[in-house]
């Protein structure tokens, strides 16, 4: 390996940006541009089958890793993470009330919902955008996905327990007894059915909150 090739190799390695043959020849002092070009081509040939390659892009040369190894250099690591409490609540609200807008979710939850929470649910593949509601402002509405049902072991959204069942298992405690009396509604069955088809029911519910 001759001295010029070594110098070119080192200079390109240490360079912050790709360099043209002329720039290299200027950088290396008295090297003739033609010789630098020869050296570049010789180096490119040397590196052809290696893990790194010397390539010319728009007359400027640089080293890069071999494209076929890209998959090795960009590894994906899967990381299990438990859904946060807030995200679980939002997911539940979407599941029970879908399709539902963010304002409706917030109204039901009684707290603001950060956009990140919906992003997480969409990233997880459990929630998708289901269009826009044809009301002023045309808000985006969200619904669950088939992956949601699969992950949670549900054949359909009807498998989600209704409010009456939730109450029976104590999941709705503490609910003031007066609530039910005042409302005089049996929310259970209508919920399970209507939830799927009637966005209005979601809106109704949210007016309670």
């Amino acid at each position, binding site marked *: 390996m001759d001295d010029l090739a070594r110098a070119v190799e080192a200079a390109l390695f240490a*360079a912050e940006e790709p360099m043209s043959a002329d720039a290299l020849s200027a950088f290396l002092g008295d090297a003739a541009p033609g010789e630098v070009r020869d050296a570049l081509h010789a180096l490119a040939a040397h590196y052809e089958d290696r893990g790194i390659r010397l390539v010319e892009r728009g007359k400027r040369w640089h080293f*890069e890793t071999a494209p076929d190894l890209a998959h090795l250099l960009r590894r994906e690591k*899967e990381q299990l993470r*438990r859904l946060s409490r807030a995200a679980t609540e939002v*997911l539940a609200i979407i599941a029970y009330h879908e399709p539902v807008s963010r304002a409706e979710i917030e109204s039901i939850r009684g707290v603001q919902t950060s956009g990140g929470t919906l992003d997480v649910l969409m990233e997880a593949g459990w929630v998708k955008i289901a269009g826009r509601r044809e009301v002023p402002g045309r808000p985006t509405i969200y619904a669950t996905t088939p992956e949601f049902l699969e992950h949670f072991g549900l054949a359909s959204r009807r498998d989600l327990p209704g409010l009456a069942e939730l109450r029976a298992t104590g999941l*709705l405690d503490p609910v003031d007894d007066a609530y039910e009396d005042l409302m005089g509604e049996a929310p259970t069955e209508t919920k399970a059915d209507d939830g799927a088809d009637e966005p209005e029911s979601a809106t109704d519910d949210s007016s309670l909150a």
Partner: protein
Amino acid sequence: MNEGLLFSDPPQSEADESWDGIASPTPASGKALYLELDGWEGPLDLLLDLARRQKVDLRSISILALVDQYLDYIEQAGALKLELAADYLVMAAWLAYLKSAMLLPKDEQEDPSPEELALKLQLRLQRLGAMRDAAARLMGGDRIGRDVFLRAAPEGLEIARKTLWQCDQYALIEAYGRVKARTAPAIHMVRERPVMTLESALDRVSHMLGVTLDWMELQDFLPPHAEPRLRKSALASSFVAALELARLGKAELQQDETFGPLHLRRASTNG
């Protein structure tokens, strides 16, 4: 010393103060070098420099000659009205003692002997000299950024973390229950409670005061068989009633000690 002046240019123009320079000064002859004590990292540094000037192996250095040089130097510096750092003077005093001890007959020596002290000084100089040489060799190695260069623009290894979110059916349902429970309208109802109003307490207390001239305890004004909650209310109302009657001049209040029983009787003038 210029310990604090790391990375700055040394106060004097000696090239060997620099990062890359050889560590041991090999000064040119002449007095210029001797004029600043700050050129040395303390007395040991100066001693090492003087020792190296003898151009012999540190192992065979003459401590006596070295001591003389150091004392001469300090004296000269003093004559030039240089401020001498205390540690240079302490070293001078110690070396003067060492020199006198070395010149005295052996049988008058104390322990440790001057030979031991001199030898230990020599050993210390050897160690400092060795470290100074080592530092110079270290600085002379193939250093990144000076002799060898790293790749300036590495692509970087990317580890894209993909999150697999986890949640289960129970957590989902429980979350919905939580939302519903949290946002359900809370209805508060105040149950009727047995109370004694201030008006009825006023009536009751003033009426009872009319019956006797003796002091009565406030407790005695309360309805005798009231349930505890009514009793509390009656106590509060009766106390306020007593204050009100005292303000109107219709009753006298007396309490012997803090938190003691409160006594009440009809005002005598009003009788």
